[in-house]
């Protein structure tokens, strides 16, 4: 048995598959950076996540002036608040996390966007009149995470449940309305001709959002 194994080892050595130490001579074909890039690419393509990232990046651009957006016929002020995560494919940085109250609209974030990163996760505040909703969103699933709803006005237990669900649906409706507006633009010629060049100028600091 031992002789047969020794013969096999000798044959592997003779074929150049192993060195004198018996270890494989094949080089690691992919280094860590390549593996990381492959993963980043896979994440971007899975479920067309690039559309979610473009959507959130577009919302960042749209929201910077602080003017209300017309969502389902209602003026809604949308603002990025708190941590914003950017992800990309090119360069040495595949993910960047920006923390700070004004971080989403900072020069650093715009510079990263200019370099090809896009918004992957963020926290948005929607304000209608004196009522505000906040929610974390990610580009892949657009799940609502750790949302804050406006204070409940009803007191009866059953009514409070209905009100809580109504408010959660309103929040979901704001996200849907943003998606609807984005898709209408994204599928039109205005996306490539007007919106993207304007976003690029905004990223480069040559134009306000």
């Amino acid at each position, binding site marked *: 048995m031992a002789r047969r194994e020794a013969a096999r080892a000798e044959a592997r050595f003779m074929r150049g598959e192993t060195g004198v130490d018996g270890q494989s001579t094949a080089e690691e074909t992919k280094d860590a950076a390549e593996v990381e890039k492959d993963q980043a*690419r896979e994440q*971007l*393509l899975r*479920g*067309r*996540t*690039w*559309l*979610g*990232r*473009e*959507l959130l*990046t577009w919302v960042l651009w749209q929201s910077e002036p602080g003017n209300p957006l017309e969502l389902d016929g209602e003026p809604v002020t949308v603002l990025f608040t708190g941590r914003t995560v950017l992800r*990309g*494919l*090119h360069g040495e940085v595949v993910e960047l996390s920006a923390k700070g109250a004004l971080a989403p609209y900072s020069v650093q974030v715009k510079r990263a*966007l200019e370099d*090809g990163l*896009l918004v992957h996760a963020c926290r948005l505040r929607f304000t209608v009149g004196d009522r505000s909703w906040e*929610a974390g969103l990610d580009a*892949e*699933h*657009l*799940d*609502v*995470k*750790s*949302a*804050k*709803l406006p204070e409940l006005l009803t007191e009866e237990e*059953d009514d409070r*449940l*209905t009100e*809580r*669900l109504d408010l*959660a*649906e309103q*929040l*979901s409706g704001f*996200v*849907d309305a943003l*998606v*609807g507006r*984005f*898709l209408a633009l*994204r*599928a039109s010629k205005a*996306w*490539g001709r007007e919106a*993207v*060049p304007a*976003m*690029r100028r905004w990223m480069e600091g040559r134009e306000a959002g």
Partner: protein
Amino acid sequence: MPILRGSVTFARFKVISPARAPREKHGWFQKALETHAFAPIERKGDEDRAEGFVEVEDNDATDFSAAAIFHGPRVLFGFRVDQIKVSTGRAREELQKWVASFERENGRKPGRAERAEQKGAIRHQLRARATPTTRVHDVAWNLETGHLQVWSGSRKAIGEVLAALEDAFELKLVPLIPGALAAQQGVKDEALSPTRELSGLLEVPHGEA
């Protein structure tokens, strides 16, 4: 019971089929929920996991009366997952104690079969003493809008709930994300390729865009 109180975190879907679930057909909902109703783990059995639908306000109840599931325009219920986990470390410790005692009594090490038999007995004992962990993921299905929310932050759990819903109700659901909504609206794939000027992605594998 996140739907009643606590963190507001949910995944968002549109019910494509049936396009309009009949609210007046309480029996239809009740039957579907009962086919996948939760049944507790049998202490004497071999299963370590049990899952199924429960009422939202009483996670031990599976009657699904109209009063329990209909709340205004919505149907509410929970998906409960109970799991018993036997600590591997604890089982190993108990087995080592038994091996030491066996050697003292018999003057020899236990055989492979004896060890395996004792290992099974220890696992059984620990399982009988273990308390199952319980998680409930709530579902809110608005019959007027056809929107369905799974109140959970775990994608794995959301996947399980969706599979149970599709099985029990024969539902077809689409996530409320740009890619899926664009496909629903019939937007052509070519119009939705990644924007090169933003993400720098040049090629998308066939069928992804």
